């Protein structure tokens, strides 16, 4: 339960951080996911580059119809209202249910997303919100859709010499409807199944089914799920043939609860 030895570096500039990552350093932020893996020796990096002291790593900026959230923004900051408006309400509700407050005080949205644990909350929710990941590499910034950013278990679309700098999410209208349901036997534990539905008046609703041992399933037009929920939930879940019977049942329940929450919101 003690980590293997590693070196620790604290880059003060993004170019130093990129150099470190290009030479194989493991990026670290709040280490609320990486820390346990280090202690369990499931991760044994030679070097950890602590990104928390980089300029503009944390914080939220509004630009027109887009909210840019620094990758180092903590879950607790989002829970406490760092993101404004209807988008912020939705995200604060999600943040409050991530692990526990002492974990949320250090864990970051970008760290969690880049770590890409299939059961992590932002991995499920950000594709449903439908924004953009801002990657920074040697050639500058690259924009990647959040839907499709997580490509597998602990795998993302980031190149090995890139860092996640920020996520951009849309400013939602006050009438945006949101349903989010995850199955945890105990408050704060990792989700066994997560479903989210976002419905904005005048646009096709979007749904995500996640925490099923792989990348999240993003349904760009979930109109059928809202129209004929039981049948469509069964059809969606049948796309995961490896699931045990109880997990399949819980996944369908998650979709039904997320749809019901959208109808009530």
């Amino acid at each position, binding site marked *: 339960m003690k*980590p293997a*030895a590693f070196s620790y570096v604290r880059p003060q500039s993004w170019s130093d951080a990129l150099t470190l990552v290009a030479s194989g350093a493991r990026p670290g932020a709040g280490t609320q996911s990486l*820390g346990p893996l*280090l202690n369990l020796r499931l991760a044994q990096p030679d070097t950890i580059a602590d990104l928390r002291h980089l300029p503009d790593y944390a914080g939220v900026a509004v630009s027109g119809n887009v909210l840019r959230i620094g990758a180092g923004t903590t879950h607790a900051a989002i829970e406490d209202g760092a993101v404004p408006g209807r988008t912020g309400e939705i995200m604060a509700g999600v943040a409050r249910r991530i692990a*526990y*407050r*002492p974990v949320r005080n250090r864990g970051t949205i970008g760290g969690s997303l880049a770590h890409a644990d299939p059961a992590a909350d932002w991995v499920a929710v950000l594709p449903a919100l439908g924004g953009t990941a801002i990657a920074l590499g040697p050639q500058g910034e690259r924009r990647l859709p959040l839907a499709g950013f997580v490509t597998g278990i602990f795998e993302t679309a980031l190149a090995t010499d890139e860092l996640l700098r920020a996520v951009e999410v849309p400013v939602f209208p006050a009438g945006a409807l949101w349903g989010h349901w995850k199955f945890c036997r105990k*408050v*704060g534990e990792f989700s066994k199944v997560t479903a989210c539905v976002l419905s904005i008046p005048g646009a096709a609703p979007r749904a995500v089914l996640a925490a099923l041992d792989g990348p999240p399933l993003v349904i760009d037009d979930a109109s059928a799920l809202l129209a004929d929920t039981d049948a469509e939930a069964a059809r969606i879940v049948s796309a995961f043939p490896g699931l045990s019977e109880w997990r399949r049942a819980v996944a369908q329940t998650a979709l039904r609860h997320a749809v019901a929450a959208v109808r009530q919101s």
Partner: protein
Amino acid sequence: MSRIAISLTVNGEPTKVETEPREHLADLLRGRLMLTGTHIGCEHGVCGACTVEIDGAPARSCITHAGSCDGASVRTIEGFGDDVVMAALREAFSQEHALQCGYCTPGMLVAARDIVLRLPNADEARVREELAGNLCRCTGYRGIVRAVLSVLTARRSS
């Protein structure tokens, strides 16, 4: 791997210590600074026994490694001697039988103090939700929840 020298403030005292980057804060506090009030349970962030304050906010000292604490201000259960909220919680924990073996208590108190200060209107359901990150194997939580609620109620009526 090389050792590093870090400077941090522990319970108000500026402290310089030589450590390995891999050493976690709980081991640093207990083994090097002899602050054994911080307890180590699961060592992967789940049980809450190691909860301390880092830069004014509760955090898990078992998954926060020494390097990242360079420059930080840490407060352990030994550092709340003159804190009125903590004094009220200690009294309430005693009154409500909110501890038996005491292993979870330091982390439980740090988490409880955060609830009292951050969520002054919390009801029982919210207190239980907020305490979900601190495991107790003795009390069944009833006494702990009662203790936190009694401090919240007293502060609301004062």
